[in-house]
């Protein structure tokens, strides 16, 4: 046992020798100069194709780097997008099936009104650009074995996981009896419209029902308007026999959960939310609840006491230097929430980014890596 340990530490030493040539960097820092996809210290993806699905939804085909792990249909991936020079993290469901053979995957993004990240992806990104990405994650996936009867309920851009699942089932030649209720504002804004129709034509076991929530000539039938139990009964009478996979706007998912709970069918309903939780809106002049995550402390802080002081009063000894915002010795990672820079009054809410705690105060609740 001991010998084995020694051996492995010897081996790991030998394995770390190449790194010493590149010290203080890694070999990977030089490899990425030649091709960012070869980097091993951070996963990158190259944009190889962009394609507009609707006037404001775009599919990006991405070629991930060497250390990519294939996703399971329905999973999402984190993407870091430069917005005004700052890398912001966004999560997008992979819209292509894992069975795709060219090593690429796609995400389909709708430019959200006022959403800087999505806007930059849909409008600014060019073929040939590189983006840092994460590995696929999420448990909104099809069970194994595949259920005998499926029902997909999707709204708007929430169609992406269903698209990946359907693509995967078809590629594996095991698409079961499936009904797909897809909600979109009108017939012009159906993401993947042609592919869906094509799928319905070539696969008799797949039945597509498009529902328009804001059709041009007003809502006239049950094929139109937002989700309702009556509509479900009409469009898919045997819904109770089906395993249901739903993804879409929060309002749609809430209506669905209510209905499924009331009819005691909740166990059959699988949901994927892509909206953000309630936003933490900091209020002027109000402090908040500060959670110091590493030390497991929780304290109340007012809006004018700097967080270094707050942490010290809670009994911690955070690293610091000047205590006046010069040296950045006191930088601490913001895990959640927001803080205010006492010098400028500016709110800082870049999650994962460094907070200068000697010149920042609580602005609403926050969690710090302290």
């Amino acid at each position: 046992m001991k010998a084995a340990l020694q051996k492995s530490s010897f081996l790991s030493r030998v394995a770390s020798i190449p790194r010493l040539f590149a010290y203080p960097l890694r070999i990977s820092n030089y490899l990425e100069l030649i091709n960012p996809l070869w980097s091993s210290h951070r996963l990158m993806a190259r944009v190889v194709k962009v394609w507009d699905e609707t006037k404001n939804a775009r599919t990006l085909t991405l070629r991930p780097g060497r250390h990519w792990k294939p996703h399971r249909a329905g999973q999402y991936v984190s993407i870091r997008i430069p917005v005004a020079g700052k890398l912001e993290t966004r999560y997008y469901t992979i819209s292509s099936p894992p069975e795709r053979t060219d090593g690429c995957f796609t995400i389909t993004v709708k430019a959200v009104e006022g959403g800087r990240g999505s806007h930059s992806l849909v409008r600014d990104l060019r073929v040939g650009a590189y983006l840092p990405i994460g590995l696929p994650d999420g448990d909104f996936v099809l069970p194994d074995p595949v259920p005998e009867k499926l029902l997909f309920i999707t709204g708007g851009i929430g169609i992406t996981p269903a698209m990946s699942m359907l693509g995967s089932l078809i590629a594996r030649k095991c698409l079961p009896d499936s009904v797909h209720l897809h909600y979109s504002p009108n017939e012009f804004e159906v993401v993947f419209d042609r592919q869906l129709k094509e799928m319905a034509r070539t696969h008799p076991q797949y039945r597509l029902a498009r529902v328009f929530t804001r059709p041009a000539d007003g809502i006239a039938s049950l094929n139109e308007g937002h989700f309702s139990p009556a509509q479900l009964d009409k469009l898919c009478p045997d819904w109770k026999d089906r395993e249901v996979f739903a993804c879409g706007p929060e309002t749609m998912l809430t209506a669905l959960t209510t209905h499924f709970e009331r009819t005691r069918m909740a166990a059959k309903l699988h949901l994927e939310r892509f909206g953000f939780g309630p936003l933490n809106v900091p209020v002027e002049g109000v402090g908040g609840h500060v959670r110091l995550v590493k030390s497991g402390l929780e304290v109340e802080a007012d809006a004018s006491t700097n967080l270094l002081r707050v942490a010290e009063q809670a009994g911690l000894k955070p690293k610091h230097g000047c205590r006046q915002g010069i040296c950045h010795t006191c930088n601490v990672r913001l895990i959640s929430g927001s803080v205010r820079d006492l010098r400028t009054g500016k709110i800082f809410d870049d999650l994962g980014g460094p907070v200068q705690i000697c010149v920042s105060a609580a602005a609403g609740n926050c969690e710090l890596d302290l």
Partner: protein
Amino acid sequence: MPTGRMPVKLTDAQIEEIGRELDAMRHEVIESRGDRDRRYIRNVIKSQRGLALGGRVIILASILFLPAWGHGLATYTVFLSLLVFGAFCLGLAKIIENMEIAHNVMHAQWDWMMDEDVQSATWEWDNVCASAEWKVSHNFKHHTWTNVLGKDPDVGYGMLRVSPEQRWKPYYLGQPIYALILAVFFEWAIAIQGLELGRVFAGKTTLRQIRSQVVMTVKKMAAQIMKDYVLWPLLVVALMIPFAFSGYGPALLAVFLWVLAANGAANLFRNFWTYLIIFCGHFPGDVYVFTKKQVEDETRARWYVRQLLASCNIRSGKFLNFLSGNLSHQIEHHLFPDLPSNRYQELAPRVRAMADRFELPYNTGSLIRQFGSTVWKILRLSFPGGASLGMKWEFKTWNEQQESTES
């Protein structure tokens, strides 16, 4: 609060206004940071890494032209020009890494990009001084206590008398020599200075207490030595071994030593250059130094004014700006240590005009003038006295009067 503590004839209201104006400048730049800045630093980082690698490859290639190979181009002229050129590229890469990239990244100038490859918390630089150590002695001590005697570790680096206010000791007679030695071993001196071994000798702390820092520094030094003086020379030797077996090519020991020498030259080049630029930052001409008493209960605005009085710019074009890591704008850097360095250039005229409006000095001059006056100061101050060097006399006496009336 008595304004007399500052060597300037300004009212409190004026000083506070200076603070507000500088805060506003800072805020403007923060608000306008964006894609162009990101592109700038990323391009610099990429090119620097390319240059470093290129330099090492050229050094390697030069070995193929050692006369021992016996082929037509194998002459000392070809070999040495390639070797020197490779060492030059590598040295340049080290300069750019240390000055325009690492120094500024560690100041948290680029943290806002949220790019985990370019963060102050994790950047380790190509220098024997451990980054963590450097951030304490430089970002905290030097930038907070700039030119405060007894507080700023960079006033003469604890070795030199660079200001008449430092009391003369016979030890300083040798300072022209110390200054030269410091230039050669600059990175080492800074690494060791960061440990503050003096405090151990003075009994203020024990070796045991600074043990972890010492270990960190030694490890860092070992890694740097390993890379430049062992591994790369050995790699080149390894590539030559097949030839050596066939009785062809140069002696392996010579190969090892040549590569080692080239890497050493690159490090030396970097040391000289950083020394040159950094000595121009706070030592030339009539730059100000301060006493601990003068900075008691200093406000943010007063800190700004002190930074302005304690720093010196080098008049420069784009090229020198870049090669000095924008420390040619030392004044702007000291006013705004965490703003992206590529922005100092556009701030400089505004800072200068503001200084002029408030009749504050703005110390700038050509590289030759600034370094010349630094050298002259080092020579002159190795002898006692020299009070007429440096601080503007009338301010100083005025200031001293204030202090004596206070006490």
